[in-house]
């Protein structure tokens, strides 16, 4: 049994504002049956102020509680104020949510954003975020754009945390490494560590740096799948490597090359690096 706070139980057992606003000025539909939760938020807006908000939710207790809390928060707000609501505001109202249920609060925030977009007549209707960026998690259709957003707003550093907040990685788990790379990228950008331009690097320094990144950043990832990597040569910005173990026979090794090896080397050594696989 989940350890829900009293506030969550109150909102679940006695949800506020259930239903649909008549002649709604804005509707936000997010989630779907396949994913196990869905929320329809409808708003009445007068003079740029949300005067009424109602919801209908398919989902677990925390999804219903998050929706109920959301409607309580937004009533009386201007559109500009409502726009700034994050999932953390919903969590605050509810006291807390179990880590595994954070995605319920994120769904609330997304429904609000979808409703605001609808009000403004913006093109994107449902699942706005999901049409931007590259699909990282194919099981739940979550993009890198969405992952970066929840990571920043909720200060997430581990791929498993991202799963709790937006489901990415929660199906087959095949994208967890990819999610971790995205997170690493987000927090490196945030700490504003200047990426070395490489101009001041001599070829020896460059080779040593590449070897270090291969050893410390890339090899541990490949070893998880029973593989490995060997540096063969460096010609200008072209790094020639050979895959070892299971990676060498993996039919998707070109993806490993591009997403794991090349991205890491570009991030840590030089943005202009090109990786070439030596068979």
């Amino acid at each position, binding site marked *: 049994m989940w350890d829900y706070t009293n506030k969550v139980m109150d909102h679940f057992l006695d949800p506020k504002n259930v239903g649909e606003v008549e002649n709604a000025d804005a509707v936000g539909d997010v989630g779907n049956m396949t994913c196990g939760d869905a929320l329809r938020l409808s708003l009445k807006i007068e003079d740029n102020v949300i005067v009424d908000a109602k919801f*209908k*939710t398919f989902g677990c207790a925390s999804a219903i509680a998050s929706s109920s809390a959301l409607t309580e928060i937004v009533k009386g707000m201007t559109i500009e104020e409502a726009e700034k609501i994050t999932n953390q505001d919903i969590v605050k109202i509810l006291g807390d949510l179990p880590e595994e*249920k954070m995605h319920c609060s994120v769904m609330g925030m997304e429904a609000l954003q979808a409703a605001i977009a609808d009000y403004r007549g913006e093109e994107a209707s449902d699942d706005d975020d999901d049409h931007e960026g590259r699909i990282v998690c194919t099981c739940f259709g979550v993009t890198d754009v969405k992952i970066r957003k929840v990571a920043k707003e909720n200060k997430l550093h581990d791929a498993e945390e991202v*799963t709790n907040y937006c489901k990415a990685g929660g199906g087959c788990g095949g994208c967890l490494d990819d999610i971790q790379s995205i997170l690493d990228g987000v927090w490196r950008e945030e700490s504003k560590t200047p990426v070395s331009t490489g101009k001041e690097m001599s070829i020896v320094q460059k080779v040593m740096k590449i070897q270090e990144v291969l050893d410390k950043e890339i090899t541990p990832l490949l070893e998880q799948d029973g593989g490995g990597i060997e540096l063969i040569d460096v010609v200008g910005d072209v790094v020639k490597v050979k895959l070892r173990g299971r990676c060498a026979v993996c039919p998707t090794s070109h993806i490993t090359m591009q997403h794991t090896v090349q991205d890491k080397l570009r991030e840590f050594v030089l943005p202009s690096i090109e990786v070439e696989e030596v068979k």
Partner: protein
Amino acid sequence: MSNDKKIIYVDNNATTAVDPLVFEAMKPFLTEMYANPSSIHTFGGQVAKYIEVARESVASLIGANPKEIIFTSCGTESDSSAIYSALHLCPKKKKVVVSKVEHPAIIALGQELVRRGYKVEEAPVDSHGRIDMERLEELIDDDTAVVSIMWANNETGNIYPVEKIAKIAKKHGALFHTDAVQAVGKIDINLAESDIDMLSLSGHKLHAPKGVGALYVKRGVRFRPFLAGGHQERSRRAGTENVPSIVALGKACELARTYMKYENTHIKALRDKLEKNLLANIKSTKVNGDIENRLPNTTNISFEFIEGESILILLDRLGICASSGSACTTGSLEPSHVLRAMGVPYTAAHGAIRFSFSRYNTEAEVDYIIEQMPAIIERLRAISPFWEG
């Protein structure tokens, strides 16, 4: 759970209450009868005798010879021991055949075997959860070391034709194992004239405590121990015996024999009454599973367009303990692999509730659930965006 609230426990496929007679039987082995059964002194010998009594009782429940019974710590250990033993003894064969609806103790083991380089095939099931026998037979070939199909499914209660499958496995020279933790004690099992090579059972599913199980290994079938260590269990399962729980399992099996008929009359009647009434009183509900061929104590009902965890929490507030095929109850994000294998649509899979009975349930409890359920479902459907009642 507060103590003043009466509990209606209809989650007996998850675990069962320890029978008071079982508890009485095991108590001396937690107090004065503490000797190590392997010890040479008389005290140790006295304790060892009770293990053999328990072994006879377990064997008798499933029509086996006591020598064919190995005590383990749980059903999962029995499953892993059986499969690893089979693979070890057939080193040239690299394939394991299971079904898509196995318990995680087999499904996750299969995934681990794939990581270790084995080929694991999962036989599909139809919309009632019945195994596609033709496809299953196609999957079993000369490279197959072992076939493992559960006797009865924990979620739907479906009973599988394991005797028939054992024959098919034998034809192809493969061993056959069955995870029977849900079947033992609920339906008649007689391994005396059977082609089943190995069978797993678990104590806490039949009113013994948690932490004890057994593996049946047919005489003449070679077995390699899972744990290395001492000579216990005729060198087939190392580790000092969990004497109190083994004695408890023996007593529970003895009682199960006496309750077998009750299981298939009274308990079945309770299940049928609940199922019939819920289906009649609540719209858009359906039973998941093979109605003609399932355990007498289990029903799995989908309440469409709502989500299982919400239903369970509202039931819990009334002291009713059930379980769900919904993703949200476990923290996983996907609904039950069993219901998905059956192709149950998501509209129904998320709202699937399992009620599983035991001899401790009463008709008054069933009546209470029948009385309370419609309001719970109505309340959640009123909130659901998909319900157009």
